[in-house]
């Protein structure tokens, strides 16, 4: 039972679509892919050949190729790696590289696979980067809670040192660099690059204020330091084997190459998939047989997180967006760490929101007040709402606390049914690092769409109605505008709500009447299982007469300040 690593029997791992090159995942299913021999004899290129080629190039030329390829950082911010390398101030030595293997953003599962299954690929990537920028040392910072990854990397490094691939005069050249394996000890915030550096120096993992100094100028020991994500560096061997052109042939102009996407939650085939950036859409990931294969049990999609817990949520209207950082950013969220969490219509928005917020409250490092106090209050308020002790003013209080962490309109997806536009990414912050503002993402996302669920938690005794359908804000709308089995007039094909089973488009519920949430005017029919501890999914088909507006005096249009 103690499976050392994460292949799902039911899910997939690796490149799935035909015609998509396996840039980083080609050895995921190779039993000996983690050994030096395995690395040299299997996969989509021969191991350490790229290093040989690179050692014949000028270091600047290596950086130039990485720039030309537009290798975007895969750790969250999506910054081009080659450009970042170029930020090291000229003539300042020594320089260091820190590899960010602290993977802990909820929903994210890819760096652990890369470290466990293809450690030599990462090591070769580190060597190429070290050669290019002139690093004296590479620190490979692996999350503490990943002993198997630590073992695989330690074994690979020992092999590589023995084979003269790391250390003194690598492959007989004048290139010398050490790669040091370092483990963390359990703290999400250490994934933030300046906190990572503090931690590496032996301190509490608290972020440094930036500006003035970014790690590329003053990082470890206040020396120029490049922090790159595991997946970012793992792209380099393939890139230097197959060339910039082949790399750019995949994906789009702005986002070339592939990405590992961890698809989790309510899909039939959760898994880690290598997909082309920019061209793949969320819908394809959710529906295609070789990816998610549809929402579980033929359920409706309610919402999804497109880029890890820090990302504002998306809804059925956004499923046709491509996995392209700029597009997703403009629509109010981010691709972040390549973690997509799918939630079907049975998901309780309040409960999901609390869980994500609780994460940030627990992981706040405490260095700045808005985050330390604000996340604590957010959690407390949400917890009491969930427990049935909420106060009518709590929803606005939540938004007010959130506004003190991230002032102004917070990035959020468009809500066409209510005529609300998207607020583009990124959020503003009153804090030292983006963790505090990240805690606001689930709150604004969930309240904007599912305010009625929060209100119901506060005002009702009955099981909480949970559906994929937001209730219209200021719901004086005629019933036929609210929703039914067919895309409504306002939405064209692209923004049509998904319903029913994903592929058939068939309604999952009989469309025998407009489905209006009954909030308060509760016919006895919607308390199916009073004993159930699970929040019941309640649909109130045929409740034409329900008039949420009359029952909910606190809800007002535009109260959500975007």
């Amino acid at each position, binding site marked *: 039972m103690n499976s050392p690593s994460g292949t799902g029997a039911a899910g997939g791992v690796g490149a799935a679509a035909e015609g998509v090159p396996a840039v980083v995942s080609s050895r995921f299913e190779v039993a000996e892919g983690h050994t030096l021999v395995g690395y040299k004899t299997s996969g989509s290129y021969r191991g350490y050949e790229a290093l040989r080629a690179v050692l014949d190039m000028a270091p600047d030329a290596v950086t130039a190729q990485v720039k030309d390829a537009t290798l975007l950082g895969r750790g969250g911010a999506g910054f081009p790696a080659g450009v970042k390398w170029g930020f*090291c101030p000229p003539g300042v030595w020594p320089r260091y590289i820190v590899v960010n293997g602290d993977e802990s953003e909820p929903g994210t599962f890819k760096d652990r696979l890369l470290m466990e299954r293809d450690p030599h690929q990462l090591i070769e990537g580190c060597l190429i980067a070290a050669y290019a920028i002139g690093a004296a040392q590479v620190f490979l910072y692996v999350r503490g809670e990943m002993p198997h990854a630590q073992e695989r990397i330690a074994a690979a490094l020992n092999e590589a040192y023995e084979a003269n691939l790391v250390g003194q005069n690598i492959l007989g050249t004048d290139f010398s660099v050490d790669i040091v394996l370092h483990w963390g000890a359990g703290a999400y915030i250490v994934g933030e690059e300046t906190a990572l550096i503090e931690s590496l120096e032996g301190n509490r993992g608290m972020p440094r204020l930036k500006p003035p100094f970014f790690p590329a100028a003053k990082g470890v020991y206040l020396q120029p330091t490049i922090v790159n994500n595991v997946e970012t560096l793992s792209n380099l061997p393939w890139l230097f084997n197959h060339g910039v052109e082949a790399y750019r042939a995949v994906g789009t102009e702005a986002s070339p190459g592939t990405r590992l996407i961890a698809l989790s939650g309510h899909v039939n085939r959760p898994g880690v998939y290598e997909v082309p950036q920019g061209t793949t859409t969320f819908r394809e990931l959710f529906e295609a047989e070789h990816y998610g294969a549809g929402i579980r049990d033929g359920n409706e999609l309610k919402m999804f997180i497109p880029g890890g817990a820090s990302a504002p949520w998306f809804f059925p209207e956004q499923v046709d967006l491509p996995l392209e950082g700029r597009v997703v950013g403009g629509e109010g969220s981010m691709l972040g760490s390549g973690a997509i969490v799918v939630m079907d219509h049975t998901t309780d928005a309040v409960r999901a929101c609390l869980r994500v917020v609780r*994460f940030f409250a627990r992981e706040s490092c405490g260095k700045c007040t808005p985050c330390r106090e604000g996340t604590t209050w957010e959690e407390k308020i949400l917890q009491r709402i969930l427990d049935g002790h909420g106060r009518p003013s709590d929803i606005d209080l939540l938004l007010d606390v959130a506004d003190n962490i991230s002032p102004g309109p917070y990035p959020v997806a468009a809500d066409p049914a209510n005529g609300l536009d998207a607020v583009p990414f990124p959020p503003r912050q009153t804090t030292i690092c983006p963790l505090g503002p990240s805690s606001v993402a689930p709150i604004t996302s969930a309240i904007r769409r599912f305010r009625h669920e929060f209100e119901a938690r506060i005002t009702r005794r009955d099981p909480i109605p949970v559906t994929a359908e937001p209730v219209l804000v200021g719901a004086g709308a005629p019933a036929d505008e609210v929703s039914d089995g067919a895309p409504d007039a306002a939405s064209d094909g692209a923004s049509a709500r998904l319903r029913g089973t994903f592929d058939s488009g068939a309604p999952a519920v009989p469309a025998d009447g407009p489905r209006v949430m009954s909030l308060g005017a509760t016919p006895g029919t919607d308390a199916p299982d009073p004993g159930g501890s699970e929040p019941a999914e309640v649909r109130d088909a045929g409740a034409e007469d329900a008039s949420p507006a009359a029952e909910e005096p606190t809800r007002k249009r535009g109260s959500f300040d975007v």
Partner: protein
Amino acid sequence: MARFTPENEALAREVIARYPRPKSATIPLCHLAQEQDGYLTEDAMAHVAELVGCTPAEVLGTASFYEMFKLHPVGKYCLNVCTNISCQLLGGEELLERAEERLGIRAGGTTPDGMVTLEDVECIAACTEAPAVQVNYRYVERITPEQLDTLIDDLRAGRSEVPPHGTLGTTRQRTAGRLANVTPPEQQGEPVWIARHRVAAEASGTGETS
């Protein structure tokens, strides 16, 4: 109790030698101490401080920041149940409750026999394999409620292959005599291969310097 044994002290010195500044070895050394004793003792922190050249309070200051360092004894097995979003969606919170019930303790507690400490943890990077738990940070993925029961019974009975709490990666990086160039930053200059290319570029009049 529990300064480093001579073998572990030798190991500690090898670890320190990998870093340009000794204090960087604080976290690895705290892990080593925890591997030796099952948790992080005061004596061990004092010893770490001596070895890396800081005060015991600084070591405590660092160690107390990190979840994995236990300043009090814990069970032989730490059972970590992930309840974060991907796992929550597939029953992680229910699994935690079930574990609490079966063990008769709350998350954070240790069974009276000292075998199992139960923890409610944040995402452990197994989200596509949810719900996931760890035993001393070794994964059990897509676990069913019944499998969790069996796992708990096995742990209480000591039937587990997993090394006791404190031991992480069992393969160590071996660096003794192999390191190329670890020196404090102030003793490091421009790397040779960079200098070589810079000189060549300057000679041919084409180069920018990096």
